[in-house]
């Protein structure tokens, strides 16, 4: 049986790992190469590197970080942040990334997704969708979510579910769905939108934003709750709160299909 994935995410700024609280108030937690190696050894199912400030500030050295991380790990590497052009994707894939996550640029230029999928294959193209729940809705209606870009600072007027369907029609191979309301809260994923997207699209969905406990990972992945194919988390792993193995163990004990924790073998 195909297993649900646990993906530690390293938010990178100026070559260092940081964890943003609502993408603000960053604090430095270390070297991305060391962190990625550690997660790989712990048995992370995939590793995600996000250049969190590239969109708003613009920077070049993230490609170098990817080039240094990629040769050190033996699991899939997904990278994202600040991708504007086809050429940015080419450079990141050449630097050793397996998948590239496109966020704002997908909104400002949807045909980019189609071109990227055609050129590199859908399996290499993730569309990152940041969403915010709209408030002040009439009582009985289903919640509505809007797609936001530029680190949550800009509205797009796009309704999240329709946008997710659209990007998969354009060729996105996977959706990285982040709730901007939950991100940094350690309050748990936004299960409603995660489940709705996971049910609606024909590609895998990675839940992101809000993990503070192992139970939150379980919720994000469980049927009837988040139903995501993969659970992304940052701070609970970075600060040594839990190891990947502890997370896997917890999920196994609660009946979730995950790859068992890594056992030590000589490399």
């Amino acid at each position, binding site marked *: 049986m195909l*297993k649900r994935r646990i993906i530690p995410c390293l938010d990178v700024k100026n070559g260092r790992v940081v964890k943003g609280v609502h993408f603000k108030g960053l604090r430095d937690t270390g070297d991305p190469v060391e962190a990625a190696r550690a997660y790989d050894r712990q*048995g992370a199912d995939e590793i995600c590197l996000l250049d969190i400030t590239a969109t708003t500030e613009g920077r070049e050295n993230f490609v170098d970080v990817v080039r240094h991380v990629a040769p050190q790990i033996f699991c899939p590497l997904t990278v994202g942040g600040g991708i504007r052009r086809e050429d940015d994707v080419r450079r990141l894939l050449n630097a050793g990334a397996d998948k590239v996550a496109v966020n704002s640029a997908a909104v400002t230029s949807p045909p980019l997704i189609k071109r990227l999928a055609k050129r590199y*294959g859908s399996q290499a193209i993730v569309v990152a969708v940041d969403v915010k729940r709209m408030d002040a809705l009439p009582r009985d209606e289903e919640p509505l979510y809007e797609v936001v870009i530029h680190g949550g600072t800009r509205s797009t007027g796009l309704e999240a579910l329709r946008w997710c369907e659209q990007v998969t029609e354009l060729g996105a191979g996977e959706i990285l769905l982040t709730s901007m309301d939950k991100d940094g809260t350690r309050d748990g994923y936004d299960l409603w939108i995660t489940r709705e997207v996971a049910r609606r699209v024909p590609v895998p969905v990675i839940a992101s934003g809000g993990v503070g406990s192992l139970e939150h990972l379980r919720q994000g992945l469980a049927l009837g709750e988040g139903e995501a194919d993969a659970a992304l988390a940052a701070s609970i792993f970075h600060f040594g709160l839990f190891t990947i193995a502890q997370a896997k163990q917890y999920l196994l004990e609660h009946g979730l299909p995950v790859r068992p924790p890594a056992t030590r073998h000589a490399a």
Partner: protein
Amino acid sequence: MARELTLVDSGLGNLASVERALIQVGSATQITDDPDKVATSRIVVFPGQGTFGKQTDNIVSGAMGEAMRMVIQRGDPFLGICLGMQMLFEGSEEAGGHKGLGILKGQCRRFPESMTTAEGDRVRKLKIPHMGWNEVQPSGEHYYFVHSYYVDAAESSDVMWSTTYGDITFASAIRRDNIYGCQFHPEKSQQSGLRFLRAFLLGSRQ
């Protein structure tokens, strides 16, 4: 002294991580797109990402396909990875049908749409591609897969390991004599993948 291994660069995706994994397990590796170098190699690894199409047609009918056939027919160890394994078979139903190298009997088929799997008392829709970690039988070990097409091998004796996704049980690793293949990505499968590559290298250096 280990014999140098040849990694075939035929434009079917990035070779860096496969090379890195082979180095990790102690193999001296040369990357080449020169069919003559491939034809004279004593151990060949042929990785491929993506799908059958114009590019694979060119390989199959061109000098590189001929070079790889020579290596295999001579009895030297050959490992096809992912699309590289699929290309060892007769062909694919992909995009109107494409030919493979035809060394092993069988066809590549697309996973059916709308497959489901039971999970507890609930049913879950399966997505295509089959992407992520899945187990192989008989060992139960996990490897990383990314593919929308699978090998339907005609001869069960060619199937070394099998994997199940939804209703489909497919060949996740094949072996016949000196010919090896894996549908998964050993270079992305952490310790399990490195062990697989090491076993191939050791088995091929008698």
